[in-house]
């Protein structure tokens, strides 16, 4: 009897380990995460507008239909990225996600405080290798360190009324995501 209890107890302990390891492995194993869904639709290092979600189709779940959304799927292995996003009339935000959909940085138009949001995205290594004088002159440049070499930049612009959506989409279409070659 005691022996059977011991077997079950060890089963429970092992079950706990199974549970924790499957939870931790899920982001690595997931085939349908946001990055995988966007990969066939978005060429690398280019801003691509996404179709608005409808009842029939939505690229990702829980997308806000009041927003025009564009994505830059980035790869920093050949250099840093310069992002320029014009600000639409109502509200514009830029959110940075890792390959595993972790939102590591987000900024809105008011925090950026200009007519355009301008950001440099690089790996911590590229940031460390930046020439020093450039770093000084770049005091007003916003530099974001990406924890992963690849990831997603998601630009969101609000259409406060459905009628404003075409205008908001046009503004967002002017956004650029440009690769800055490492060797200048």
């Amino acid at each position, binding site marked *: 009897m005691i*022996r*059977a209890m011991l*077997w*079950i107890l*060890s*089963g*429970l*302990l*092992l*079950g*706990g*380990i*199974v*549970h924790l390891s*499957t*939870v*931790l492995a*899920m*982001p690595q*194993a*997931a085939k*349908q*995460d*946001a990055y*995988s869904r966007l990969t066939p639709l978005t060429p690398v290092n280019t801003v691509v507008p996404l179709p608005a*979600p*409808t*009842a*029939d189709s*939505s690229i*990702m*779940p*829980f*997308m*806000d*239909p*009041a927003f025009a959304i564009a994505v830059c799927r980035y790869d920093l292995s050949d250099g840093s990225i310069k992002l320029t996003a014009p600000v639409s009339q109502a*509200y514009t*935000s830029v*959110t*940075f*996600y890792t390959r*595993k*959909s*972790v*939102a*590591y*940085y*987000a*900024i*809105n138009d*008011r*925090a950026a405080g200009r007519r355009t949001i301008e950001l440099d995205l690089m790996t911590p290594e590229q940031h460390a290798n930046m020439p020093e004088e450039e770093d000084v002159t770049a005091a007003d440049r916003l530099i974001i360190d990406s*924890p992963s070499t690849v990831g*997603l930049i*998601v630009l*969101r612009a*609000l259409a*406060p*009324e459905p009628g404003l959506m075409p205008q908001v989409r046009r503004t967002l279409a002017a956004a650029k995501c440009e690769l800055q070659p490492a060797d200048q």
Partner: protein
Amino acid sequence: MRLLLGSLITFLVAAAVGLGATWLTLTRGVAFGSLNIGAWTAWPKRGSVDIDPYARANIARTGELPTGLGDGIAFYARSDDARHGFDGRCTFIVSGMTPAARYWTITLYDPEGKLVANAIDRHSFTSDEIVRDGDGSFAITVAPLARPGNWLPTGGVDKFVLVLRLYDTPIGVSTGTTKEGPMPAITRKTCS
């Protein structure tokens, strides 16, 4: 023989407990660091690098991109204030005020996060669109059939979720003291 039987039991228990717990936590959603106001729940850390492993696994599974903390915060409601689950055949009233935010939107989804088909193609309201009373408060009628005023159609679905997103807001950003905002009340009226 005993050893074989014993280890078999161990492995069966381990698989059942381990995988069962994973499945439960990922489908039901575990709430670490949740911010509850009335029927509304938000997980501010889901939009930052402090996201917990359960939320990470959940996001990887569903394919969602959470709202970044510097962008805004999303509050989810699956029932009214009296814990009646949202049923698309019933009428619910969402009324009151929202916390301070530059803009907000309220959107109706099915439990999987898809928009719900309806005749007038209305899935959400923004803070600019909503018709308000003199004191700035508003009331949204969430119902299967057309209503005057702010009507958010349910399409008659079994279950739905309401998501209130606040953009450019101090809510959720200041950790520690979670000052409760004036979130809209949700009450169930009639069911058809």
